[in-house]
């Protein structure tokens, strides 16, 4: 077992710069509290971890299976609000609210399917975009129970310290991203979903013609997307301690999309890079809204998106990866870009 791990590390991780960077980064995340335990940094990184789950779940639903959802905040917000309401009115504690909130979000994912499965392309995007706005209307209309624009505050924290919260969010994030990565891996020998999602995205009619029950897999995509976005939302409510309508807003939906497009759509690592680069950097530079960057976060994010769409449509992470890695033309193995010949078959790379 250990020897196999060592062999894997030696022969399929170390020669590929992208994988080295990913592993170094994750190790860094796990030992990060050793360097600093300032609660602001812990808080920023904990929220970033949850936004990673949120962004990756959007990528799975919209990037991989092609159901372009412009209202992903629906799942996030539904879960966060059910956590808040359950805690306020029934006094439930985090160990109960988080699973229930996640399940409710998953259920909403199934409900969304009913209109969403009948629609394609722009109609689907516009429809999904309007769902969270509908919920904002409901929240504002029943101010007496929901607190309106101020939302619900005083939700208990999941851990006593910020470092504890950071580790909980980090572990949940790592596990969720690994699961979603496996589910969307088209080359996987064990899970078929990745391949089928690709097929549905590329040509739904052809996928159906080859005997795939596309309806079932589209529902599955909505369920997985709803589940993970809901998980992120429930944890987010507990870490922030409040729920407000901003968790359902159009800006929240677009955050997921902005991170994914910035990093690179249809690539799990792109979403991860997008969140850590954009969100963490903006939060650290913003220092809670006291600097110019902090006050103009949305403006900066919007301008970055416009520039990325115009000049780097494949996404920053994918662009960087293409610069540092090269596929061998003969055996399709990934090599570092600075190698002269392929590390396996010796074919000339230049």
């Amino acid at each position, binding site marked *: 077992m250990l020897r196999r791990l060592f062999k894997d590390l030696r022969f399929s991780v170390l020669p590929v710069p992208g994988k080295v960077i990913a592993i170094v980064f994750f190790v860094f995340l796990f030992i990060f509290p050793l360097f600093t335990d300032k609660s602001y940094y812990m808080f920023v990184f904990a929220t970033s971890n949850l936004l990673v789950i949120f962004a990756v779940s959007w990528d799975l639903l*919209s990037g991989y299976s092609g159901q*372009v959802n*412009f209202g992903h905040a629906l799942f996030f917000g539904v879960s966060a609000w059910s956590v808040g309401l359950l805690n306020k009115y029934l006094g439930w504690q985090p160990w109960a609210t988080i699973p229930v909130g996640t399940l409710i979000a998953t259920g909403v994912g199934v409900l969304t399917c*009913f*209109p969403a499965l*009948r*629609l394609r*392309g*722009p*109609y689907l*995007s*516009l*429809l999904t*975009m*309007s*769902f969270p*706005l*509908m919920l*904002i*209307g*409901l929240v*504002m*209309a029943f101010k007496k129970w929901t607190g309106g624009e101020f939302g619900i505050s005083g939700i208990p924290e999941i851990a006593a310290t910020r470092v504890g919260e950071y580790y909980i969010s980090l572990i949940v994030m790592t596990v969720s991203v690994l699961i979603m990565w496996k589910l969307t891996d088209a080359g996987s020998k064990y899970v078929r979903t990745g391949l089928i999602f690709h097929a549905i995205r590329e040509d739904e009619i052809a996928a159906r013609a080859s005997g795939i029950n596309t309806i079932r897999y589209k529902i599955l995509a909505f369920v997985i997307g709803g589940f993970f976005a809901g998980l992120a939302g429930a944890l987010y409510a507990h870490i922030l301690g409040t729920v407000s309508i901003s968790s359902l807003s*159009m*800006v929240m939906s*677009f955050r997921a*999309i*902005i991170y994914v*497009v910035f990093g690179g759509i249809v690539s799990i690592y792109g979403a991860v890079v997008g969140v850590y680069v954009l969100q963490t950097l903006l939060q650290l530079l913003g220092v809670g809204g006291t600097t110019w960057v902090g*006050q*103009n976060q*949305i*403006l900066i*994010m*919007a*301008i970055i*998106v*416009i520039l990325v*769409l*115009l000049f780097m*449509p494949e996404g920053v992470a994918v662009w960087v990866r293409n610069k540092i890695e090269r596929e061998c033309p003969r055996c399709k193995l990934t090599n570092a870009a600075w190698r002269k010949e392929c590390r396996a078959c010796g074919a000339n790379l230049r």
Partner: protein
Amino acid sequence: MIEQLIILTLVTGGVYALLAIGFSLIFGNARVINLAHTGFFMLAAYGLWYFIRQLGIDTVWAILITVPAVTILGILAYRYLINTIREHHAAVLLMTIALAMVFQELMQSLFSSLYWSIPPLFRGFTEILGVPVLNQHLLVLGVVAVVIIIVWLILSKTKLGIALRATAQDAEVANLMGISVPRTLMITMGIATALAAVAAVVVAPIWTIHPTMWTPPLVMVMVIVVLGGLGSIKGSIIGAFIIALVEVSVSLFMPSYAYLKVVFAILAMVIVLIVRPGGLFGVIFEEERL
């Protein structure tokens, strides 16, 4: 009550119709869902406010400056930002919403997030069948009617209109017939943005001006256009009045639950979509040829 309902429905519906026609035109021709559409509407309202209140220019001149300026801005945005990524509808949605957010944030940092208002063009009210109607509301109705007729005349009678409709039906064949498709699309974008600016001109004195004023009409326009069928002008006009009726009756009969108007409007859209996935007068596009 009922008279108020009718008048408010006509006024709100008229404004929504102006916005929805533009939205629908640019979708029908360029297959671009322009979420920044109401962003241009907001820019025009801010422009009017700036010229009238800050610089003290006469209202008529302010209108004559603002509408062309916003139109040119729309054409430039189309030419340099949207045109290059026109093929990918998700990218277009993202680009246009980012554009709208840039507008919102710019307005907020330039003019703060306070609520502003501008004086109406015509003060006072007229009595029609014993019901007092604000003159500004009458102006809205008049302008909406005139603009809709002009758009209809352009589309059905002029050479430009034929080019626009040909491009909407099949851009490739239109290109083969000697129509310059890129230019036609730019003109379409110009018309659409101009309609948004005109809507802002007539409605700015009634509504308040603030940096997030673009989102409520955007939601309503989205609902209207999906309800009426994307790309269908007739559908947009009819949808606008249906949604306006829903909205006005909710805010008149249930004033304490006025926020529910969005909920009801979206519910109406969902029901129509479940029954008729292409909208009421939807144009179902064939798979685009590559």
